[in-house]
Each structure stands twice: as structure tokens, then as C-alpha cells.
């Protein structure tokens, strides 16, 4: 079935018996974005009909992004990513294609990661806390950056800076930034994924964007994270 989908063949062809050969491969097989978009609903439909190879292909496509998300939320590591895919597989029949498959997957992964974070840091953060007013929002650091960060730093240095800045955010801001800006969920989708209101998402998003601008600004001007 997977081969039929990937080659654009209509209908459900012969079973894909090489599933576990695919699993043992160490490198995923990324496909051009157009193919990802065009055939994803077929893969999802096949996976829902218990075609494990099709689910495997979906995992191959998104495992790197989901690992990045769960690492960014929890500060490490692979368990949340693994459990997100296992949970997704177990609940595939609950996915009714009223959103993108990836959006659905991101929601599951975010919840897995948040659950771990809450266990590790009970009572230390809450997404339900009231959102602060806007009296202290005015940026304090105002200075032209001159050459852009891309001109000043090598790409690897920028990646390292980005990781440090995101790690230093409070979880209730980090998660909103990651879902809304990093994973490009809509404001509504982010609110639904986190179980908070749209105004709460917007308020936290504004704050975190301003925080990050200021942190990047300081790093950029002083050469050290804040």
C-alpha cells in the first residue's frame, strides 16, 4: 500500500512486506514537500486502516521535528517523542482530518512533553495563571543591530544561540512560542492544544516575542546570553 501511495498508484496495491526493512534503515527518506502535501491524506487513511508501513512513513517524515519540539519543551529527551508516536498510533481512529495530521501530532507531542515537565517540576508553572497587564511591555533596549545576526554569526553559532535563548524561557512562555511560531500552529490551534484561551495565547505570544527580541539584542550587543 505504501509503495502505491508513494508512486501515485491508484487504489491499494499489494501489501508492503518490506516494512521492517524500512524500520531498520538508519536514515529516513525525506520526500519533496509537494509529495508530502499531496499524499499525506492517503498515508493517514492507510495507517488508520492498520497499514503499519504507512504509519512508519509518517513517522519518518516527522520524527525529527517532533524530537526537536519535545526537546525544546522538556530540555531533553526522546521518551516524550517516542510516546507521542505510540499514542498517535493508538488513537489514529480518533483523528478525523479536521486539522492537518502534523498539527494533530504536534498537539499530542506537546501534551506528552508538558506532562513530563509537570511531573519534573510540580507546581512550578501553570498555563492557567492569569496573564499580566501590558504596563511593562515597552522595550528598554533600543539600538540598531547594524550587521544582521546572520552576517555576524555562522549558522552553527546561531543554532547554539537559539537553543540557549529558548531554554532560558519560562515554560509557560516557551510552549506558546514553540507551538505558535516554531510549529506554525494558528492561535486557535495553540489555544486548543494547551487548553487556554485565545487572548491568553496572544498575550503570552506578544510577551515572549518581545522577551526574545531583547534577549537576542543583548546577546548580539554583548556577546553573552541573558
Amino acid at each position, binding site marked *: 500500500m505504501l509503495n502505491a501511495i508513494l508512486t501515485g498508484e491508484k487504489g491499494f496495491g499489494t501489501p508492503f512486506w518490506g516494512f521492517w526493512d524500512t524500520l531498520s534503515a538508519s536514515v529516513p527518506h525525506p520526500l519533496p514537500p509537494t509529495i508530502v502535501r499531496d499524499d499525506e491524506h492517503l498515508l493517514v487513511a492507510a495507517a488508520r486502516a492498520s497499514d*503499519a508501513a504507512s504509519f512508519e512513513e509518517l513517522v519518518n517524515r516527522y520524527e525529527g521535528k517532533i524530537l526537536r519540539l519535545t526537546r525544546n519543551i522538556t530540555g531533553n529527551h526522546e521518551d516524550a517523542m517516542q510516546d507521542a508516536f505510540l499514542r498517535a498510533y493508538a488513537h489514529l481512529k480518533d483523528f478525523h482530518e479536521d486539522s492537518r495530521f502534523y498539527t494533530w501530532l504536534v498537539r499530542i507531542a506537546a501534551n506528552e512533553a508538558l506532562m513530563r515537565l509537570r511531573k519534573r517540576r510540580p507546581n512550578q508553572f501553570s498555563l492557567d495563571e492569569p496573564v499580566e497587564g501590558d504596563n511593562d511591555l515597552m522595550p528598554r533596549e533600543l539600538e540598531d543591530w547594524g550587521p544582521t545576526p546572520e552576517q555576524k554569526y555562522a549558522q552553527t553559532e546561531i543554532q547554539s544561540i537559539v537553543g540557549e535563548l529558548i531554554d532560558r524561557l519560562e515554560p509557560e512562555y516557551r510552549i506558546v512560542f514553540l507551538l505558535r511560531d516554531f510549529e506554525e500552529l494558528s492561535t486557535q490551534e495553540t489555544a486548543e492544544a494547551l487548553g487556554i484561551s485565545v487572548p491568553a495565547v496572544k498575550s503570552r505570544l506578544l510577551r515572549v516575542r518581545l522577551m526574545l527580541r531583547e534577549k537576542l539584542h543583548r546577546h548580539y550587543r554583548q556577546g553573552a546570553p541573558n
Partner: protein
Amino acid sequence: MNCKGVIRELSNYIDGDLDPVVKQELERHLEHCEDCTMIVDQTKKTIEILCGSQPVSLSTDVRSRLHAKLRDKTGQKPT
């Protein structure tokens, strides 16, 4: 609109989520306020830089463990 109003609407402006009248007021302010223009540009740039990172490459070990768990879940056996 004053500077505080621009900051309050900054996210909505960047996301293209502003009422046209409010957007026009904000852009009129930007025409003569260098500080706000700088903040808007730097915030856009910040998002662009921070969100440009690549997905993580899974190590062979991590990948093997993930797929072994999936194999258990799906009840499939290696061929």
C-alpha cells in the same frame, strides 16, 4: 496611535491579524517613529532567526529504539 499602542498590537501586526483601520493607524505611526520601526523590524527578524533552525537528526540508537517500540505496538515482526 502612540508607541504603547504599537507595542500592544505588535504581534497582531506581525501576524497580519489587525483590523485594517488599526493597521493603518499603526503604519502611520511607524512612518515617523524610528524606535517603533526598529522594534517591529527586530522582532520580525528575531522570529525569523529563532524559527529557522532545522529539525533534529535522530541518532541511529534513538531511531532504533523508537521503531522497536512501534514494532511492539503494531504487533509486526521484522522480516
